[in-house]
């Protein structure tokens, strides 16, 4: 990471902290803000957040590792999260899983070579009445069928 890049990340984090407050309770919104832009929170960003919030870097890392939606490793520009909890599972999660893996040529937990899409599982998305469900970034899709998977993937740039 070069100096310019570092400076811009520091600037970004400073902005987020100004918005949410220079206090530990801003940690999650700040992490979410950084991740929204970079799809993950880099080593450098974690240390800058720690410095600016006056906590230890390991505390930032600890928090990131706790929450399943936060990442310290780079991810694709888009994340597809497929619900794997019981009702979606009973309503045909497996077929959707297969369709996604087949169409993208990657397994769950992996990212496409062009760094466009990461496949992940999620626990209950609160769409049990309309399963199987998945979310693409923050947009939710319900009653997904293998056919619909192709449409969804086509909709991702």
């Amino acid at each position, binding site marked *: 990471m070069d100096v310019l890049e570092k400076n811009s990340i520091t600037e970004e984090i400073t902005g987020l902290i100004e918005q949410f407050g220079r206090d530990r309770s801003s940690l999650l919104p700040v992490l979410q803000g950084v991740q929204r832009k970079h799809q993950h929170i880099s080593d450098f960003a974690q240390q800058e957040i720690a410095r600016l919030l006056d906590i230890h870097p390991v505390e930032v890392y600890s928090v990131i590792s706790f*929450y399943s939606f936060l990442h310290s490793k780079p991810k694709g520009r888009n994340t597809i999260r497929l619900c794997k909890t019981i*009702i979606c599972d009973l309503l045909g999660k497996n077929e959707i899983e297969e369709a996604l893996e087949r169409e993208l040529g990657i397994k769950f937990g992996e990212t496409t070579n062009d760094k466009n899409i990461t496949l992940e599982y999620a*626990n209950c998305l609160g769409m049990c009445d309309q399963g199987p469900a998945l979310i693409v970034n923050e947009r939710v899709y319900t009653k997904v069928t293998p056919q619909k998977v192709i449409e969804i993937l086509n909709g991702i740039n």
Partner: protein
Amino acid sequence: MEDLETVKFQPVIFADYSPGEAIRKAVGISRQDVLFELKESKIKGRGGAGFPTATKWMLTAAAKADKKYVVCNADEGEPGTFKDRFLLLEHPELVFDGMVVGGITVGAQKGFVYLRAEYEYMLKSLEDYLQQMKKDNLLGENILQSKYNFDIEIRLGSGAYVCGEETALIESLEGHRGEARNRPPYPVNTGFMGFPTTVNNVETFAAVSHIITKGGEWFRNYGTDKSTGIKLFSVSGDCEKPGVYELPWGTTISEILDLAGASNTKAVQVGGASGYCYPKTQFDRKLAYEDAGTGGSIMIFNESRSMLKILKNFMEFFVEESCGQCTPCRIGNAKLLDGIEKLEKGEYTFKYINQLIDLGRSMQVASKCGLGQTSPNSFISILENFREEIFAKSSGGRNVN
């Protein structure tokens, strides 16, 4: 998202309501009057634990502190629950008005909505709604020209089921890992940043808006003696009409099955993964705090489903979602899952399975928070209620489905 099936019994939560009504009422009466109506209604928390809301608010109101907080628990993560999603999308006015009433009543000036990350798609519309409330002077300073100030901020979760536990939620709001706190002290005394905090479920706030406008007695008329009012049930699984059902407490499981158009039903999981699984013989059980209690999740499984597979899904869920701080929950859930895998393979002894059930009972009493205290429920109830299927020699529980 498709349109939702909603069944409105006698509209209570879905009764007529004009936005801001509860706030208008609350600013005109005393805090004691609000608390009186709540007490009269006998409403208990809608998240599942069933703590009397009036008591919670009274304790928060009585606590001496410079600052107080109201938190709306919108971390609806219990498998099979989606009624809060519906309320937030369709009736944000009920939820936010209830929060403002809460702020006025307990003496808080700031409220948080802890919205689960999975619901980020509704963030924009909720924030727009809050902006509108500010414009209408229903939020902000001197609400409706009264002396009350109250603001609401929406904070997103980041994918952790345990943050639905109120003290874990507060930890998360403070920027920590979502690890439940020791209780006592309770949040009503020592909550967000150490200040008195009342944490209530989305549905509780919505109900409060109605109770304040229509009176506690009106609410109390519905339901049973110990479980008053109307409850939203999230019905899903093997039925024709999954959706949100507004029904009085005391409705039986079979009544819900009929309404939802379920046939050939083998089992009903009440209360989500952390709830209990009921077999046919118990479908006459009443949904109520005093009988089959629930935060609203009703999952229906028909004869074609493998109970072991369902149980495995639940236990995998808990192993992933346990925060990991306390021993019984962190390791106990993994051991229960081990047991299920051994059952699948047919490599078990009854002695070992009984030991696991015993372990589950220890987890129920020795875990630090509600997660570990309830995660063995489905393990114990499925193994006890579906013993024949699970131990059937021919299947080993494997070949069903």
